[in-house]
């Protein structure tokens, strides 16, 4: 596609800035692009700090933003995402657009008190989002 763009560029007559920006609009990425956002929660807010000893606060993070049409290259999305985007745009708008969701996570170590008063340290998988994708 880079080759085709270069050819188009050569063929295109000297255009005023207005047409150029129009031309490049097809490649622009949404302002509100799909990305990782910070969110810090403390277990006392959930009233769980009586039995969760550590950590007292933790940042699960979350993914939010729009998914552009050309998702493959930028978000590591599977081909299906582009197909679903095509279905949404061309065939059936009731089929949802691809969503901005976590793609990779980090684990979290948690120290808790059990009902019988024993104490348990456990490492939980997938507790912190570290990367987003569109799918």
């Amino acid at each position: 596609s880079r080759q085709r763009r270069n050819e188009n560029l050569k063929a295109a007559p000297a255009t005023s800035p207005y047409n150029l920006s129009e031309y490049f609009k097809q490649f622009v990425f949404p302002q509100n692009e799909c990305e990782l956002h910070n969110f810090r929660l403390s277990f006392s807010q959930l009233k769980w700090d009586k039995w969760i000893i550590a950590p007292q606060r933790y940042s699960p993070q979350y993914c939010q933003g729009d998914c552009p049409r050309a998702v493959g290259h930028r978000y590591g999305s599977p081909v299906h995402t582009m197909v679903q985007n095509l279905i949404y745009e061309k065939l059936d708008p009731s089929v949802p657009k691809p969503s901005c969701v976590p793609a990779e996570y980090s684990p979290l170590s948690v120290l808790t008190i059990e009902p019988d008063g024993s104490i348990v340290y456990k490492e939980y998988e997938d507790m912190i989002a570290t990367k987003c994708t569109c799918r």
Partner: protein
Amino acid sequence: PHSRDRGGSDKASGFLAAPEDTASELNPVLQLPKGARRGYALLPPLLKVLSDQGSRSWDSQVPRLQPDSRALRYMKRLYKMSATKEGIPKAHKGHLYNTVRLLTPCSECGHGHSDLVKGDVHSVDLLFNLDRVTALEHLLKSVLLYSFDTSVPISSSMTFICHLSIKEHDFSSQVCPSISHSLAFSLHFEVSKRKWVEIDVTSFLQPLIATNRRNIHMAVNFTCLMGDPQQSTKLENPVNVTLVPPSLLLYLNDTSEQAYHRWNSLGHRRKSLVRARQRNGPLEDPTGDKGKRNAQGKRA
């Protein structure tokens, strides 16, 4: 997970909630099929309360015994050694466990603190309840955790020669002889008031846990001679060492899906590095630098 047929534009009928369970609207867990509800019971407390989405504050509904303060101090120290400030498990080499349980002996056995002075024998009857250990938590190592508190801070270093013998209390099974285990070790006190001593009893406990015992009942004899015979140190003012009944520490490998499996992340990191080289997208750093966990495939 259930799938819905969306052929063409007409919508198939949606998934109907089970009519007979009107209570299920109140409690999301009751909407789960029977098998999943049994799985729900196995979930660790944190995931139980997450799947309830806090609809019932789990902690207020479940009566809770307060843990022993010494045990709590020990586990907080273990947490600091095992996780970063943000709570992410540190990448320890050879750290195969992803769960550590500290059990304090149950109180009905009626033993309090006792002083161990100059070669006293400290024998105690311990009953540990293993109900909280799930079927997917496999024992890697077990330790009797003793905490020695000296009545006064020790001015100089001091050595104890100790001997510990454990015998299982199980009158029900006459057939197999009760398991016993004994070992000798020396205990060296530096200038400190408190000392943790971890005595490995894995070989003693492994056969008991393997038979899925829910209660471990053991008699523990603990003898310590103060002063080191070789150096024949004479103690002007003998120090009282308070010996509290030990806690039982279980290092476990939880193979459930929700638990973090360190060895999986090694494999995953190798795959993402390969994928990164192929695609080399702007978001994917080719060096695979993911903060702390950047052990290239080679080191692993």
